[in-house]
């Protein structure tokens, strides 16, 4: 195995900046934010997804991933998150290929809905102003978001996820150095 590439150049301030990008994304679903500039994680992990996990995952957050041995070693080293075999047992789920079904991930309970998983979903591209029509908390009227390479059947699966509110999964879509978020409250209509 080759030597691991570096994590954040400035662990404290880069984690803060990434968190604010995710917070902004989660607060305004469909708005595209930048994260992970300068990170060179091993493939297939992209820079934005790597930054999200570096800033939020740690020994307290079980992680499931499908990104292969190199990315797993990199995340274990830089985050220290325990990697679990069952996606349903993970707090963070990193999907770089065929994403596991939303309904198979931790949903939380009516009393503890915050136990629902965060799915970090790598996609081919994110573009504002076209594509899906998003409405819900965080959105004044409507946000448009085009997601290139979303899993087949995602919009239908999302409707079921949203219907389970307050339980459910929250998603951070990551493409290159860009990210956008789908909190469980957001409604998605095909464009």
């Amino acid at each position, binding site marked *: 195995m080759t030597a691991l590439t570096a994590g954040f150049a400035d662990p*404290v301030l880069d984690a*803060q900046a990434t968190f*604010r990008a995710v*917070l902004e994304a989660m607060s*305004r679903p469909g708005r595209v934010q930048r994260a992970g500039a300068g990170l060179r994680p091993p493939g297939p992990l992209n820079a934005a997804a790597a930054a999200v996990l570096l800033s939020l995952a740690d020994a307290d957050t079980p992680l499931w991933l499908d990104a292969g041995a190199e990315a797993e070693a990199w995340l274990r080293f830089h985050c220290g998150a325990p990697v679990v075999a069952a996606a349903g047992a993970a707090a963070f789920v990193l999907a770089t290929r065929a994403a596991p079904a939303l309904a198979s991930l931790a949903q939380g309970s009516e009393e503890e809905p*915050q136990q629902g998983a965060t799915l970090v979903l790598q996609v081919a591209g994110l573009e504002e102003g076209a594509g899906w029509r998003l409405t819900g908390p965080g959105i004044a009227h409507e946000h448009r978001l085009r997601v290139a390479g979303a899993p087949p059947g995602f919009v239908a699966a999302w409707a079921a996820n949203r219907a389970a509110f307050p339980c459910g999964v929250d998603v951070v879509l990551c493409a290159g150095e860009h990210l956008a978020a789908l909190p469980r409250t957001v409604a998605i209509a095909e464009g």
Partner: protein
Amino acid sequence: MSTMEGYNFAYLDEATKRMIRRAILKAVAIPGHQIPFGAREMPLPYGWGTGGIQVTASILGPQDTLKVIDQGSDDTTNAISIRRFFRRVAGVATTEHTAEASIIQTRHRIPERPLREDQIIVYQVPQPEPLFRLEPRRAETKRLHALADYGLMHVRLYEDIARLGHIAKAYDYPVMVNGRYLMSPSPIPAFDNPKMDRMPALQLFGAGREKRIYAIPPYTEVRSLDFEDHPFRPIRAPHACALCRSTDTYLDEVITDDAGGRIFVCSDTDFCAERQAAAAPKEAAE
């Protein structure tokens, strides 16, 4: 960076910040739902807004400009101490002007100037559970929130109407967030409640002693509980501000002398000062 020696940026260690950041993100995803977090001891006593301070410390970055208000004022000991704390441990810029702030930490008020999309307001919360006085058992209030069973609160408010002819809560007036969760707005005057509704800024709430975080995303419906025959009415003292003459801001009553003299002035000192400054040239020209 001009931060205090021997402390991590913004005082909290990175593991604590991550834990609080994860709680904040889930709070935004579940508007109005209280999320427990492992609160840390802070170098300020409870009652000084340790919950708000931990939220602010977890979101703050070097690019931010911080405003801290206590009952609308930037000049109380509490507000000055918190501002000084963050200048020291994070080296951030601070301001007394609402318009210049990217983060506003507040105790008991929402600024009069409408907040923008590029701002975050952090409320200090002494008691996050709106049902606390009606049902002190935490396990039971959790169950009631899970069921969205808020009959207790409706009964409590209706008893006020039956006894007094109106709802007696002037502060910490309960709200429904996004039509799902009953939430305490913290002890802000009921006058401020309508500002929470569909606010362009993100609203975060931190309760240190009770170890709870909750949030209202931007543009989210926040409705003060009321009844068809007794609609919610934000109350203010029926006077004009003695300093800026505003008739639509929240006023504090100030005793001016030992003889019981009193005046009413804006509780939001920054807003009042700006109005006075804007009026001054005009009056001078008259």
